């Protein structure tokens, strides 16, 4: 057997873990499936986008309404939401649990490589695997670009960042589940349980205010939606990072072979408490950026400048039920934007039922309070609400001239592209990609066993 030059311990561990990743059928399944999933999403998105752009002789929608972010990027990368939710956790669980089940963890614990370093290497290996898995999505963007489609890179990169943070959280939770469950199957069930729990929290919190609504803002699904809308909220980034690192620290505490059960559980609980504290602290941060090319998450810049001058607390009490579409409009057009610009802003929802059908006389009223002054509106239209807030705050609204001069790029042109189909997508995503993944897996197995 030939001698080889020595590598560093971290490089050797990386190769060991990479070998484990490549030996995992779940990883190859993820790779093989992600191509058709992305392909299906992309082809459907291109066809729908082409249809509303007037392909096939149909009436075209207003160009300003045609955003590639909503029409192409978000649906295409929606395939990764599925993969991160249902496939990635199994890959991550296997990487940690197989080591324990095979006894490799006992051997590695006695090496000079520390436990945090071992988990970091696993993250790196999963990151490398994630890069491969990201290729179909990037190919879809390249195809769209080759068709002449428009892509605004800040908002596109923001969506990718959202998926990356979502994947990091999924890996963290999978590690945590693998650390406390005796078998991979139990860990998978626990991880899926957390996912379903997040969905349940989303559902229960819909149209509510208070702590439950605050908590629901940080579920993976809700967080991803904000990135998909072009928002880059600092609070959310920090909260997702804190949750992911907290879950990984929890896993590290629970699998430390040199600590007794009491010490392990204490450290794990401490990791959870610290993560919850960090998430709580992050939740109070209002800073963020609107990276959507159409600035859908922002008021016109002149209005933002005027609103930022309001030092008094602004409170909104909305007597609208969770399932009332007016509440959805109000949230999207007004409340979400006000949260970003007002330093002291809070919303309370007062309707008692979910539908609003049997609520009392004041149903539909929205009360705005600035300092000591308050007023009621039923409108959910942005200019009307802003005018009311300016009046309550006693400041002059920006004039049309100042709005135009301060905000020269408000007119979003829209990017119609009347394509009937996505040329080249079907053979690439349905045939070439799965075939390449399958053949690589097959020949790697044969080559490995020689």
């Amino acid at each position, binding site marked *: 057997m030939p001698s080889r030059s020595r590598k*560093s311990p971290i490089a050797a561990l990386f190769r060991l873990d990479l070998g484990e990743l490549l030996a995992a059928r779940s990883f190859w399944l993820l790779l093989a499936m992600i191509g058709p999933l992305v392909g299906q999403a992309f082809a459907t998105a291109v066809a729908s986008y082409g249809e509303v752009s007037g392909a096939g002789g149909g009436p075209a929608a207003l160009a300003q309404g045609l955003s590639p972010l909503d029409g192409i990027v978000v649906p295409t990368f929606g395939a990764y939401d599925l993969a991160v939710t249902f496939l990635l956790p199994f890959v991550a669980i296997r990487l940690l649990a197989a080591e324990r089940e095979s006894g490799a963890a*006992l051997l590695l614990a006695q090496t*000079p490589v520390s436990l945090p370093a071992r988990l970091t290497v696993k993250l790196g290996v999963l990151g490398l695997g994630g890069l491969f898995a990201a290729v179909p999505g990037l190919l879809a963007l390249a195809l769209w670009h080759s068709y002449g489609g428009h892509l605004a890179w800040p908002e596109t990169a923001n969506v990718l960042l959202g998926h990356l943070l979502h994947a990091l959280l999924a890996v963290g939770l999978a590690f945590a589940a693998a650390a406390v469950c005796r078998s991979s199957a139990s860990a998978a069930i626990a991880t899926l349980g957390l996912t379903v729990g997040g969905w349940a929290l989303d559902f229960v919190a819909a149209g509510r205010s208070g702590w439950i609504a605050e908590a629901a803002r940080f579920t993976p699904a809700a967080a991803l939606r904000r990135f998909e809308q072009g928002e880059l909220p600092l609070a959310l980034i920090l909260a997702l990072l804190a949750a992911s690192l907290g879950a990984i620290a929890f896993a590290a505490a629970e699998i430390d072979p*040199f*600590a007794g059960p009491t010490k392990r559980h204490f450290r794990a609980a401490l990791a959870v408490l610290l993560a919850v504290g960090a998430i709580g602290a992050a939740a109070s941060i209002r800073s963020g950026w609107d990276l959507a090319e159409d600035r859908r998450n922002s008021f016109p810049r002149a209005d933002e400048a005027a609103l930022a001058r309001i030092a008094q607390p602004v409170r909104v009490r909305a007597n609208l039920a969770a399932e009332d579409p007016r509440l959805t409009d109000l949230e999207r057009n007004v409340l979400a934007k006000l949260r970003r610009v007002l330093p002291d802003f809070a919303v309370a929802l007062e309707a008692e039922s979910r539908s609003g059908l049997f609520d009392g006389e004041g149903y539909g009223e929205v009360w705005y309070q600035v300092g000591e002054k308050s007023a009621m509106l039923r409108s959910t239209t942005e200019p009307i609400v802003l005018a009311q807030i300016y009046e309550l705050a006693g400041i002059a609204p920006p004039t049309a001239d100042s709005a135009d001069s301060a905000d020269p790029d408000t007119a979003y042109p829209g990017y119609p592209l009347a394509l009937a189909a996505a040329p080249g997508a079907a053979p690439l995503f349905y045939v070439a990609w799965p075939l390449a993944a399958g053949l690589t897996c097959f020949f790697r197995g044969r080559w490995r066993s020689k």
Partner: protein
Amino acid sequence: MTIAAPELLAVAGLGKSYGRRRVLDGVSFSVRPGEVLGLVGPNGAGKTTLFGCLAGLLPADAGRVADGVGRVLPPPGRRDLLFYLPDGILPWPEQRIDRLLFRWRDLWSASEARNQGPDLDALIERLGLSRLRGSVAGALSKGERKRFLLALALLSPQPLVLLDEPFDGLDLRQTRDVATLLRQVAAAGRTLFLSIHQLVDAGRVCDRFVMLSDGKVAGEGTLDALRGRAGCLEGSLEEVFLALT
């Protein structure tokens, strides 16, 4: 608190229970540099538990483990002194063993004691693994797997190596070859502590013995010393063991 001892490792009053079952009870003995020490005892005597506790991978309920200068070693600190190879494991079953051995060797490349480990190529040759170099670990037979695991253990650089049932799964010729190899490793300066339930194998390779019965040390010393203690001066290790336990 320290234990004054010139030995490589000194164990005092080690205890471990699983629920109400006392598995180790006041276990005390010492390990001397360069010797092959045998831990002998029937199945269920607590040998594997003792090794796990020594390595720090199982929390002991009582007792101390100290190094040669009497410093009490906390569990994470023991990995600088000793390496423990458990029995019945199959690490990285889907990877080729030649790559695993190279990577395992590289894991120790930053260790100060790395030069104490034997040459990898020579070790592979001595353990009869050359013809298996392209095999994945999971496809090895029981004996092949044991030899692969022994290679992993002997590649570690620690001065003391704990091997749990190193001859389990080996045929007669392999047992003899491995015993010879272990003797050579000890002669080169490393200390071996072997848990063996086959007393014939233990008698062939070990310099001294720790006899464990029902979680307690029934005797410690060379075969001659144990014979004297058991009162059967011509007895085999088996007869001595039966007399003492």
